[in-house]
């Protein structure tokens, strides 16, 4: 049972019973005049008060007026027992006869709230109760006939009959009662006078009727002593009037006029309890709840703490929706008795609705901006396809791009773009580099478009043999935001650290200066009247000279940008050169040497406090939107100042508390709305204009004037009047919204028109410009978002924190169609593994927690169709995030391929053995291309057979063993051998030579690619990769294979070079050994033998000297001759080791001595002027020596010419004969040894010897600079360095 029903049950039956009993007693009374009428009147009055009280109690459960009404009625009915003829009951009835008057006085004074407001009122009421009980009852003790009625029963309370005392007492009480009643009436009148017009409308009827009743009772009581008739008559009149009084109370109470005043007050005061608390106060329902409607109607409501709620009322509760312009914003859950007060509910819902809408607009705007930003972050701005020559082949412009369009058409040259020529050069060079390397290249550049410096990032990828793609992203915002965010962060830290305002002003000025690239920044505080402002903070860039007031000085605002801020209350920008600046303003800027100014207002608690202004000297200008950026800083300043103000307010709040009642009265009068009371015939009856409504400048004598005479558009006035007529006709609230130009600015106003009398209505005017602007901004922001969404190449999702798809945007060209519906759960996404979804949700939550972009990658699909996706997460609301999914399979493949190539290249560079590289290459190729198997083969001489030298296969797959030799028989390897190019065989596409089809089928191979390995221009082998049915290699796989085989070629060339070098070294060593052996033999066979002979001859001669002197002499002569030959042979031998003439005199004389020993004419065409380094001279000498020896032995030549010259840092040695030719350098160790000797010096030996056409031997040997030469070159400023050798 509801509380109100219980009240009815408790009160109504006893009241009925008492009423019935006393009515019967009165009707059958013998001492009552007109007993029937008395009985009826008594029951009517008592019943009316009880009934009105019960209704009031039900409708206004928290208002005591109902109880007081019931008390009046009940005591009135109880007082009816005086009609009885029984003495005790009659005496009791008389004793309490006056009690209803006490309650009535209480009721009147406490109306309409049911509470007494002042000590005086409480005193009056208490006095009343004392008078009607003690005062009235006391004279029963001494007065035997208190009612002056002879038929009445005897006084049961009579203590002693004392006429004198009784008369004095009765007269005193009567005088006191009359005086008291007059005092009550006076109090009521005073309250009425102090009441507001709205309150008076409620108070008047009740006070008039109640006051009149009291007056009549006063007359009736006062007249008792001198005119019984007058007393009787006025008593009757009072009783009749009293019948209507409770209904007047009731009607006044339920009109809710004052409830409305409460709403206005609540809106003005904005108590800290929040909207729900205010609703509870306004509805007098402590359990009332405010629910917010979710953006998607299907998702229902949330309560003020954000918990989901059903707007289904429990028993005894009711739901009132909050709507604005047909849109559901929320709901109020309240006591169902409030349904009887639709006006109150409507007012509260409208007031709260306005507030919610304002908040929602702000939130929606923020959310929309966040989404836009998330999209911009995730979006490439613009894509161009450009040929190698710089011709635009294709343009994909992004309509949502922040940058101005480049204006480039298909077919035009990139040099037609607005960016600087050197930038275009860089762009083309980078494009060519991308083409050359096949890799993604990224560069950044600046471009000035329409005076606005933008920062662009270009990503270059080859898109064909002679064309590349440039994806240009505008990163200006990102760059600026980075700088700006850190600056804001510093300021915010300072604000949070409760820095003193003076210090903060300078900090803000400095940060604003650096973020906006300003030359000068000032913070100014407006002086009252906004004619002047005081500089409170100042910053000037290094080396900048700007004439402006210093901190503490005051400046006049006439014709300044700062005044413009005051006028518009918005961030502004003034550019001297844009032609829009007024002459006065331009003069002001020139006077301060300023070219461009941005400024933004600082608002504290809704009041314009000051301004931040930044300036640039000529010829610079701020970038577009700089003024809006400034706003972010001024908001922080506002916050800091509000903090400061709040601290000050806190200390003042104790005083404020005392004055709170006075203040609330004043607030009632100072409702935020402008109001006009207008008569039906168009006269202004009353008005009040509050800022920011500035249309009707209050003029003297406006009251009583015609509404059409006001300075206001006539058509708007006409519409207001028509709606006023409608309000009067229907009694319903009318809404009127319009735009109007106020002092050059377009503003939106809302009128609420409600009847205020039979022929008048009230127009409440509100300025709703701010709300409208928010709505418009929101709309345009959403349009931008939509445009971006549609232009996106990626699939996009908006997902709630609990994993529900809120929005899905699928790109038509997407490689992966979306298989989900809005409202479904991400966990139900078909084909997505659970761990991927878990990672997605975790990243989304991380984005929500940190507020930062999160990026993760995952794999989807299976072998053969494995795709990589990248997800970027940004928060798009409190409990939802934005997910942009991009297919990055290609990029991923490229990355893996690059890594694989890198590993192979490292192995090659690390001089790994060829066998190791072969296996590595096949494995990397297999993995990168997703092959089932890969082989590396070497061609056998003749190109008919090949040997497998490296192999890799997927675990479990069969493979050919390394070392196996097979016939190529027209397969892929054979085709590569013949063409020298990569090939692809696809069984499905019929690209396989007929005789190879069967072989592929036998092996179960469906797709096969091969690329050549070439060493020093000759086919060496191939890498072959294969896939079994039904898979196929992706397009271009064979070309990518080529990248690997090129590395193998390189490795093999290295290997071959290494082998040749080793062989050359070995030959040089063995040639040296052989030479030494020859020398030893020559010494042994020649000079040594001769010396042995000489030794023996000398010994023999010695032995014969005495016996046979003649023979001894002959022996000595022989020994002497032998010794001469030995000496000559030793000289010859030494010359063979290293010609002394070469060491001592150089190449020319050495070659001349060679020529002398050559049996045919030698002609020297040219010889070097200077000495060459020793090893070069020696090599040249032996080349000529060997060549001449060969000529003499084999050539059958008639002449030979020799030339040695130094050219371009090289020694060139040439020996040409006119002999038979046909020399074969491979055969014969002489020439081979020469080549080794020359190559050991990094030189090169060539033998040209066509049969019958003579022989030319030509050697080229680099001549290293001597350290001294290098030093000299260095000192003279030439190239090279002292250490260069």
């Amino acid at each position: 049972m509801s509380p109100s029903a219980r009240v009815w049950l408790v009160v109504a039956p006893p009241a009925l019973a008492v009423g019935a009993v006393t009515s019967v007693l009165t009707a059958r009374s013998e001492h009552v005049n007109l007993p029937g009428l008395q009985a009826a009147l008594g029951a009517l009055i008592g019943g009316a008060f009880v009934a009105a009280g019960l209704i009031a109690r039900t409708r206004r459960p928290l208002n005591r007026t109902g109880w007081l009404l019931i008390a009046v009625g009940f005591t009135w009915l109880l007082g009816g027992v005086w009609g009885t003829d029984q003495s005790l009951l009659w005496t009791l009835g008389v004793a309490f006869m006056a009690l209803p008057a006490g309650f009535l006085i209480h009721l009147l004074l406490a109306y309409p709230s049911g509470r007494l407001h002042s000590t005086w009122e409480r005193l009056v009421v208490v006095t009343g109760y004392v008078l009607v009980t003690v005062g009235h009852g006391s004279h029963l003790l001494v007065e035997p006939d208190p009612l002056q009625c002879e038929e009445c029963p005897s006084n049961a309370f009579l203590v002693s009959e004392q006429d004198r005392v009784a008369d004095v007492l009765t007269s005193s009480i009567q005088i006191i009662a009359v005086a008291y009643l007059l005092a009550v009436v006076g109090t009521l009148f005073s309250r009425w006078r102090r009441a507001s017009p709205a309150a008076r409308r409620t108070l008047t009827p009740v006070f008039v009727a109640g006051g009149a009743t009291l007056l009549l009772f006063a007359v009736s009581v006062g007249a008792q002593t001198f005119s019984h008739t007058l007393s009787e008559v006025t008593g009757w009149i009072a009783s009749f009037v009293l019948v209507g009084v409770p209904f007047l109370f009731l009607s006044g109470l339920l009109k809710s006029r004052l409830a409305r005043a409460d709403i206005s007050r609540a809106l003005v005061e904005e108590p800290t309890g929040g909207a729900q608390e205010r609703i509870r106060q306004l509805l007098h329902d402590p359990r009332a709840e405010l629910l917010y409607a979710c953006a998607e109607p299907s998702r229902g409501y949330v309560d003020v703490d954000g918990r989901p709620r059903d707007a289904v009322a429990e028993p005894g509760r009711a739901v009132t929706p909050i709507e604005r312009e047909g849109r559901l914003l929320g709901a109020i859950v309240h006591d169902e008795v409030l349904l009887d007060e639709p006006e109150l509910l409507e007012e509260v819902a409208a007031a709260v609705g306005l507030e919610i809408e304002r908040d929602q607009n702000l939130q929606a705007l923020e959310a929309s901006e966040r989404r836009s930003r998330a999209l911009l972050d995730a979006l490439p701005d613009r894509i161009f396809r450009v040929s190698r020559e710089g011709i635009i082949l294709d343009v994909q412009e992004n309509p949502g791009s922040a940058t101005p369009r480049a204006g480039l058409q298909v077919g035009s040259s990139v040099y037609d773009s607005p960016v600087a020529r050197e930038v275009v050069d860089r762009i083309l060079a980078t494009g060519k580099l991308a083409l050359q390397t096949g890799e993604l290249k990224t560069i950044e550049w600046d471009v000035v478009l329409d005076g606005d410096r933008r920062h662009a990032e270009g990503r270059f990828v080859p898109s064909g043999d002679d064309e590349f793609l440039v994806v240009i992203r505008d990163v200006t915002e990102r760059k600026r935001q980075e700088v700006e965010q850190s600056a804001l962060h510093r300021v915010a830290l300072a604000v949070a650290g409760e820095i003193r305002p003076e210090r903060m002003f300078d900090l803000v000025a400095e940060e604003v200066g650096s973020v906006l690239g300003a030359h000068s920044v000032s913070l100014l505080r407006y002086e009252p009247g906004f004619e002047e402002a005081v500089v409170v903070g100042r910053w000037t860039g290094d080396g900048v000279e700007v004439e402006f007031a210093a901190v503490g000085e005051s400046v006049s605002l006439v014709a300044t940008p700062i005044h413009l801020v005051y006028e518009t209350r918005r961030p502004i920008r003034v550019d001297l050169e844009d032609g829009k600046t007024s002459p006065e303003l331009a003069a002001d800027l020139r006077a301060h040497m300023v070219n461009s100014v941005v400024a933004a207002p600082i608002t504290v608690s809704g009041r314009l406090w000051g301004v931040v202004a930044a300036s640039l000297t000529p010829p610079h200008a701020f970038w577009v939107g700089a003024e809006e950026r400034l706003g972010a800083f001024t908001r922080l300043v506002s916050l800091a100042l509000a903090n400061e103000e709040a601290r000050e307010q806190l200390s003042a709040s104790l005083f404020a508390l005392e004055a709170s009642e006075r203040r609330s009265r004043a607030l009632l009068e100072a409702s935020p709305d402008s109001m006009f009371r207008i008569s039906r015939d168009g006269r202004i009856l009353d008005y009040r204009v509050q800022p920011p409504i500035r249309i009707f400048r209050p003029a003297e004598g406006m009251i009583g004037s015609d509404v059409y005479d006001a300075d206001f558009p006539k058509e708007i006035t006409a519409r207001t009047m028509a709606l006023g007529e409608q309000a009067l006709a229907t009694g319903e609230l009318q809404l009127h919204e319009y735009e109007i130009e106020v002092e050059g600015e377009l503003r939106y106003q809302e009128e609420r028109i409600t009847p205020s009398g039979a022929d008048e209505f009230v127009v409440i005017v509100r300025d709703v410009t701010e709300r409208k602007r928010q709505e418009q901004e929101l709309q345009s922001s959403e349009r931008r978002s939509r445009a971006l969404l549609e232009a996106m190449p990626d699939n996009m999702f908006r997902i709630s924190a609990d994993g529900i798809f809120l929005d899905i945007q699928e790109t038509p060209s997407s490689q992966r169609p979306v298989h989900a519906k809005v409202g479904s759960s991400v966990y139900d996404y078909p084909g997505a593994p659970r761990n991927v979804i878990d990672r997605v949700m975790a990243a989304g939550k991380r984005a929500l927690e940190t507020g930062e972009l999160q990026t993760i990658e995952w794999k989807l699909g299976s072998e053969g169709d494995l795709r990589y996706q990248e997800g970027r997460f940004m928060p798009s609301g409190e409990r939802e995030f934005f997910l942009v999914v991009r297919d990055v399979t290609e990029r991923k493949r490229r990355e893996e391929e690059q890594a694989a190539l890198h590993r192979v290249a490292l192995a090659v560079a690390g001089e790994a053995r060829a066998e190791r590289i072969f296996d590595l290459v096949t494995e990397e190729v297999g993995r990168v291309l997703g092959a089932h198997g890969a082989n590396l083969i070497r061609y056998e001489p003749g190109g008919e057979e090949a040997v497998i030298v490296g192999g890799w296969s997927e675990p479990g797959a069969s493979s050919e063993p390394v070392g196996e030799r097979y016939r190529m028989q027209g397969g892929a390897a054979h085709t590569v051998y013949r063409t020298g190019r990569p090939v692809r065989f696809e069984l499905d596409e019929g690209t396989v030579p007929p005789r190879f089809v069967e072989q592929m089928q036998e092996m179960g191979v469906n797709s096969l690619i091969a690329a050549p390995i070439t060493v020093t221009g000759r086919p060496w082998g191939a890498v072959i990769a294969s896939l079994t049915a039904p898979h196929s290699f992706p397009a271009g796989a064979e070309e990518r294979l080529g990248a690997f085989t090129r590395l193998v070629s390189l490795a093999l060339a290295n290997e071959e070079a290494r082998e040749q070098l080793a062989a050359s070294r070995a030959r040089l060593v063995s040639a040296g050994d052989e030479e030494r052996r020859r020398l030893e033999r020559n010494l042994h066979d020649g000079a040594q033998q001769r010396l042995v002979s000489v030794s023996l001859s000398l010994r023999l001669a010695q032995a014969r000297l005495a016996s046979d002197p003649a023979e001894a002499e002959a022996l000595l002569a022989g020994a002497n001759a032998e010794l001469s030959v030995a000496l000559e042979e030793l000289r010859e031998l030494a010359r063979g080791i290293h010609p002394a003439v070469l060491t001592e005199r150089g190449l020319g004389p050495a070659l001349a001595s060679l020529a002398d020993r050559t049996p045919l004419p030698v002609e020297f065409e040219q010889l070097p002027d200077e000495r060459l380094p020793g090893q070069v001279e020696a090599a040249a000498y032996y080349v000529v020596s060997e060549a001449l020896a060969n000529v003499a032995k084999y050539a059958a030549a008639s002449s030979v010419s020799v030339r040695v010259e130094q050219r371009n840092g090289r020694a060139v040695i040439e020996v040409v004969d006119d002999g038979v030719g046909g020399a074969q350098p491979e055969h014969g160790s002489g020439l081979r040894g020469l080549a080794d000797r020359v190559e050991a010096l990094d030189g090169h030996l060539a033998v040209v010897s066509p049969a019958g056409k003579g022989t030319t031997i030509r050697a080229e040997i680099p001549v290293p600079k001597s350290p001294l030469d290098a030093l000299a070159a260095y000192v003279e400023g030439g190239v090279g360095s002292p250490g260069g050798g």
Partner: protein
Amino acid sequence: MSNVTTVLIVDDHPSFRGTARTLLESEGFDVVGEAADGASAIQAATSLEPDVVLLDVHLPDINGFKVAATLTRNGGRSAVIMTSSRDARDFGPLVEQSGARGFIAKAELSGATLTSLLQ
């Protein structure tokens, strides 16, 4: 056995053969023959059966040690003395292994050194 020791000189250098013959004959040896290479040395030694074969290590056809081994293997009656313009240390144990009686450096050749090796 007569008192005079017979000698076969084997060397590819004629000047050495001439000087050695003069030297040895002047000291009472009987130079019964000369050979310029290994093959003719074996032939001459077989037919002449000298007391001593003065054998050069370096011969144009067959290594002197092999010639020495051939001459001494079947218990031939000639004593083989190796000679060379090189030092004995260059050959080490090769001389003894070949079956030769000893080694004389060419520069130290004399009747006395030869006789001392034969005793």
